[in-house]
C-alpha cells in the first residue's frame, strides 16, 4: 500500500509520500492519523499531488486548507495534479513551463 498526506481536512489534494503508479491503492494520512484510502488513476511522483475528489474546470484546488490554484481542465479523483491541469490564481507560470519535460 502506497502513502499520501492530506495536510488539511479541507484539501482536495494529497501529497505523495512515495512514487505512486496508476492503479495503486494509496493510504491517506492526516496530520493526526489515517483518514482512508484512494485508488490512484495515474502515476504521481514522490512529493507531487493526487486529486482526492473530482475537480471541475475553473474550480479551486486546495492544499493546506487554502487555494493553491484553479483547475484548467476537469480533474478526476485519483488523477495526478500539477502544472498540466492547474494554474495559479495569482501569477502566470514561467513562460518556459510548457517546454519543460517532467
Amino acid at each position, binding site marked *: 500500500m502506497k502513502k499520501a498526506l492530506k495536510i488539511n481536512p479541507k484539501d482536495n489534494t494529497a501529497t505523495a509520500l512515495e512514487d505512486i503508479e496508476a492503479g495503486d491503492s494509496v493510504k491517506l494520512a492526516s496530520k493526526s492519523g489515517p483518514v482512508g484510502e484512494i485508488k490512484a488513476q495515474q502515476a504521481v511522483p514522490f512529493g*507531487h499531488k493526487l486529486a482526492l475528489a473530482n475537480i471541475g474546470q475553473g474550480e479551486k484546488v486546495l492544499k493546506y486548507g*487554502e487555494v493553491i490554484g484553479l483547475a484548467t481542465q476537469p480533474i478526476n479523483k485519483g488523477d495526478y495534479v500539477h502544472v498540466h491541469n*492547474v494554474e495559479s490564481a495569482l501569477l502566470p*507560470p*514561467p513562460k518556459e513551463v510548457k517546454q*519543460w519535460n517532467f
Partner: protein
Amino acid sequence: MEFLGYERPDGSVGVRNHVAVISSGRCANEMAATIADSVNGAMPVLHTHPCVRLKEDNEWALRTLAGLGSNPNVAAAIVVGVGCENPTPYQIGEEIAKSKKPVEVLTIMESKGFQNLMDRGLELIHEMISQACQMQRKPFPLSYLTLGVKCGGSSAVSGVASNSAGGQVFDRLIAEGGTAIFSETAEVIGATHLLAKRAVSKEVAMRLEEAVERMEAGIKATGVDIRGSQPTRGNIEGGLTTIEEKSLGALAKTGTAPLQGVLEYAEKPQSKGLFFMDGSAMTSELIAGEAAAGIQIHIYSTGGGLTSSFRCPAGWGGEIPILPQIAVVSTPSKPRDSQEKEFFDIYADTIVEGKETVDQVAERLFEEVIAVACGKLTKREMRSGYREPIVMYSTGPIL
C-alpha cells in the same frame, strides 16, 4: 509549562549563559576571538561588517550587534574594537548597557596599543566568567520564550513535513503566551493575502503588504521580474505547482496564530505572539536579525537532498554563536548512516515513512525546544572547531 532559564536584569530570561566578546568591526575579529579563546566559557561574536558601508547599513550593524549583546542568552559582554569603526564600539556598548547587564568596551585607541587591550580583555573576561558561572537556572513559564524559524533546503515534502510540525510548535508556544518570529519577505510573495488575513489590524496588514512591495520593487530594479519566474523549474520538478503552493508551504512553519506585527530587521517585538520580520532569505543575515530581536532558540526547518548530506548549520545554516539552533530534516539523504545522526536534532522523515504523524513529530519538536531551553546542547553546540562569522545585513552600496 515551565523551563529553567537565567534571569536577566531587564526581566528577560536566557536559555544560555554566554559571556560574549563582540567584535565591533571586521578588523577586530581576531582580537575578539583571541580573548574569547583564552578562557573556557566565553563566546566570540565575529562578523563581516567592514568600515566601507554607508549610513543605513551602519545602522543595521549597530542594531544587530547591540541586539546580539542584549540577547537574553548573553550574561555579560565585552565589545572590542580599534575605535574608528562605524558603528563605534562605544555606540554598541551603550546600546547593550540599556539591558542593564555588565558590558565593557575596549579599543586600541583608548588602550594605547594592542597588547594593553589584550591584557585588559583577559582580566575582564576572567571576572565576567567568574560572575556568570555562579548564576543558577530558575523555573519560568514558557511565555518568557521567543522562538525564531527559518526554512532551508526545501524538498518536495518539507512544506507538509518539517514546516507543518514547526508551525504546530509555534502555535503551542503562542498558546502558552510565548512569542515567535519568522522572516523571509520574498517567500511571502504569492501568499501575502493569506498572511494579511491573519493580521490583527489593518495597519499590520498594510505594513506587511508594504514590505512585500518594497522587496518586489528592489528585485525589479535589478531587471528581474520575480513574477513570471515562480515557481522555479526545480520547484516544479519537486511537485510544487504554483507560487501559492510554494508560499503556503513556507508559511506552514508559522502555524496559524494571528499576526501581531511586522518588525523591521533586528527590531524587538513589543508584545507577545507571532511576528513577521522584514528581511532577506539569506540564512546568516536572517537568523542574526531574529537573534538581535531577542529569540533564545532557533528552529531550522529543512527539506533534504544534498543539503542534508553534510553537517547542517555550520556553513549553510548560518551560525549565530549565542543561539542554540534546533535543526529539523524532512527527507535526509539516503542511506542514513550513523555519522549523519550528528547532523540534525530532529529527524522528521518518519512522516514520509508513515511511522509517525505530523502531530507526533510536532510533539517531539516541542519537547526538544523545552529541553534545549533547559540547557540540552544542540548538535551544533556540541561541535567544536570551525566557526562561521555572521554575515551582516546590508542594503546599500559599498564604498
